[in-house]
């Protein structure tokens, strides 16, 4: 069975497409895009049945449009055959947002990956959804600018996917997440209409549709163009690693740094299990016997950074940091970050599989919640590692498991659910940046009541009433794709 509990099965939203209908759809799509850009054999489709979450489901057809007009035409074809459409960036999502739970057509944006415009005077860039996040900053860096949101997967994830999930990253602590950096979108509606929302300027008259669409997980529209804000690179960056002998000391340090009004650019925490995995993988020089390490970064003008570093070090010392190391140069800084950004991958060295949660809690509750996370996992006999955005209170417990052990998946699922219950009770939320997708549909009820959920569903009703786009996501739903694969 899947890691997420299957909701009660009643009538599914969509029937799986029949072979003969599929042939017709493939023919129409091939006429539009050329056969080369329409994948439909099971061999070709297999790559698109999963993302970085745990569920999987094979699409019937994968298409690769080259333009907004292509996307609009694809949507019209899909609508005429009543076949669902799921947009997909790089497939790095962690909540199943890109998994086509009813099959249908998956739109892949690899051919729409261009930077259309960069305007340094007005600090704007216009990009296509398939552009890899890091490629934008790479293009801006020579002029001294960059694009702020930096998910750990930024070397492969796309800005379209970031917009769909409202992606965060380590440096969102002072600068905000994707929604704080997007001013406008070009979108395709379920009718196949191309619409501009927001724009280049601020405060466009009318409802803030851009704000509504960012993080809507592909359930309202398909984004075909994104207008983003770019910013100047900081003059000085100091990266520090503080080493602690207890988790409590590390989390109290985080909460005191924030409370004191010093807001660094990033505060990341890694616990012992993660440190061991990371060291084996990246050799970043992290101590393997420490209970926890904080990776912190101060940036801005030289003078301000010096002041911040002093304050941060003082707090670390107050909470008995065994050592505080400041990266001596850019190479060492990159190494520290490589350790952090590769952490999920590194865990593969110590466990065949892991399940990551994404709860957020008020920062002052971190010590309590982290203790509860270890208690919960211990009570299920599961190992857990923590690597997360501590400054935002955004937890990423990685529960390690092996699906070959009977009953293990069920225990992992229960532990994950209990962790999110604790986050909700502590005044937090069930997802800070990974999205709800199919993974946390049931957990929506931990933080939203029936009225809250109904109001949200009104939005989907207004935009995507027949759930042509990304059906069966976000809300508890009856019925699922029959061939969601078992682990």
């Amino acid at each position, binding site marked *: 069975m899947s890691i997420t509990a299957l909701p009660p099965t009643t009538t599914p939203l969509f029937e799986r497409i029949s072979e003969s209908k599929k042939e017709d759809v493939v023919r129409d799509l091939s006429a539009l895009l050329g056969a080369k850009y329409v994948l439909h054999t099971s061999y070709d489709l297999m790559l698109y049945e999963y993302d970085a979450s745990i569920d999987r489901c094979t699409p019937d057809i994968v298409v690769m449009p080259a333009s907004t007009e292509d996307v609009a035409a694809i949507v019209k074809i899909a609508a005429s055959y009543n076949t669902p459409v799921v947009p997909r960036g790089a497939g790095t999502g962690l909540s199943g947002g890109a998994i086509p739970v009813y099959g249908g057509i998956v739109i892949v944006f690899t051919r729409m990956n261009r930077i259309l415009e960069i*305007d*340094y*005077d*007005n600090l704007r860039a216009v990009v296509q959804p398939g552009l890899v996040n890091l490629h934008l900053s790479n293009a801006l860096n020579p002029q001294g600018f960059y694009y702020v949101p930096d998910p750990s997967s930024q070397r492969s994830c796309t800005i379209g996917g970031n917009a769909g999930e*409202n992606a*965060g990253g380590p440096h*969102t602590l002072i600068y*905000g*997440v994707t929604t*704080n950096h997007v001013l406008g979108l070009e979108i395709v*509606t379920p009718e196949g209409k191309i*619409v501009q*929302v927001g*724009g*280049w*300027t*601020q*405060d*466009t*008259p*009318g*409802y*803030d549709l851009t*704000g*509504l669409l960012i*993080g809507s997980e592909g359930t309202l529209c398909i984004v075909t163009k994104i207008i983003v804000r770019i910013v*100047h690179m*900081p003059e000085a960056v100091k990266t520090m690693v503080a080493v602690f002998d207890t988790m409590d000391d590390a989390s109290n340090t985080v909460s*005191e740094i924030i*409370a004191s*009004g010093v*807001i660094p650019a990033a505060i990341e925490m890694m616990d012992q299990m993660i440190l061991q995995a990371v060291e084996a993988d990246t050799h970043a020089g992290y101590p393997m016997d420490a209970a926890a390490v904080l990776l912190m970064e101060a940036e*801005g*003008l030289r*003078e*301000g950074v010096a*002041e911040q570093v002093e304050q941060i070090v003082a707090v670390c010392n107050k909470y008995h940091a065994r050592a505080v190391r400041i990266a001596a140069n850019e190479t060492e800084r990159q190494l520290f970050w490589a350790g952090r950004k590769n952490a999920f991958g590194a865990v593969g060295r110590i466990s065949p599989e892991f399940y990551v949660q994404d709860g*957020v809690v*008020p*920062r*002052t509750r971190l010590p309590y919640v982290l203790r509860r996370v270890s208690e919960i996992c211990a009570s299920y006999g599961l190992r857990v590692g923590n690597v997360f955005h501590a400054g*935002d*209170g955004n937890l990423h417990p990685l529960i390690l498991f092996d699906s070959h052990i009977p009953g293990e998946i069920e225990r992992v699922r229960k532990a994950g659910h209990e962790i999110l219950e604790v986050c909700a009770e502590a*005044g*937090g*939320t069930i997802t*800070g940046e*990974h999205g*709800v997708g199919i993974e946390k549909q049931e957990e*929506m009820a931990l933080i*939203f009541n029936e*009225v*809250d*959920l*109904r*109001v949200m569903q*009104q*939005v989907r009703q*207004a*935009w995507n009433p027949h759930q042509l786009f990304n059906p069966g996501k976000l809300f508890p739903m009856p019925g699922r794709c029959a061939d969601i694969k078992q682990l």
Partner: protein
Amino acid sequence: MGDIETFAGDLQTFASTALVTSEADTLRNYAVDGILPRFVVTPTNVEQVGHIVALANQHGLSLLARGGGSRMSVGGLPEQIDVLLETNRLTRILEHEAPDLTCHVEAGLTMAALQARLAQKGQWLALDPPDAAQATIGGLLASNASGPKRLRYGSARDLVIGLHVVQANGELSRSGGRVVKNVAGYDLNKLYIGSLGTLGIIVDANFKLHPLPIAERTLLLTFTNAGDAMHMVIALLGSLLTPSAIELIDSGAASDMSDFFGVHLPTNGYTLAVNFEGGAVTIDRQLDETRQLARKHAALMVDDLAGESQSHFWEAIREHTQGSVTCKVAILVSQVAPYLQTVEQVCRRHDLEAAILAHAGNGILFIELRPSDATPRLIEAIAELRSYAKEARGSLIVERCPVDLKRRINVWGEPGSDFFLMQRLKNQFDPNGTFVKGRFVGGL
């Protein structure tokens, strides 16, 4: 027309402690663009707001929410207002989690009262709109008010982390939460902010807070022409200096500020006010480098403000963004200088005068047009200014104007190609048209 008598009777039953008035003299104080409500109801708690809205909905009455009343001029002419719901008794600070830098407050609290409370713990809500003493949290959010410091901190959309909103059927619903990072479900906070009460009534809000700056200074620079001033702005934005606010003041606005606020600025050319916040050492360097940059852009140094004179200056700036005929223009920063020339030409052509303040780093201009009773000339000038704003990838809305003028123009301009999507949202959220129509974009 709804059944107003049974509504009044039912109110007694369901919201007995709410204050209800239908006295003509009182109602006149609550007129919106000359339209008098038939009832003013002042609930004393959130539950009553729900009851009142539900009753209005059931009786087919139209309802409009009002905070401190400082922004009622925003928007088109309202259609009939049966019930005006005043939120100013909902003033509780539900939580100020100082160590988390968050707070949770009711919508009727004034901005000034909130800031005073937060300041006790060395924090503030980083929004600096006009009229802090009168304006309420709910009203500010519903009308998306902001001020000069949005350059650094963003606007309401960047600071709100959760809302409770009474829906058109009277039910209370939550969006977001009380943590700073949250992607669970649709981000409805964004939808309610600036929706002018057309989708629901904001009854309380959770905010992300900031520490009060350790120090703050403002440099005043004067330029003989707009081009130099805006080149300076672009240079500042593209530099490392990270100013918190950059305000551009034209000669018309400068003489207003001298007449009304006793702030004396050169009354020819353009003044640029550049504000920095942070540690003292850092600010010294920021000011130094700004002065160097200013010299390159042919600026004259006017003043270096701190303390009282600085607070008074920014107070004057905030209040000046509201006059009798105020157009708010949002355009690209690089287009501000040419746009200022256009304003001059348009005014000359129509024999009008302008006083302009701009959040120059955001490309947001507040253009005060005079005389305010020159209706036919104003209509033409506004139409021209709007079309130039559109050419500069922007928009023009008329934030304040006399009712005479409002009857004859569209304060928002023609809705864009995304309007049908806004209509669908409105139909979903308010199918019976309970929230007063006419004021929002496209008459929503």
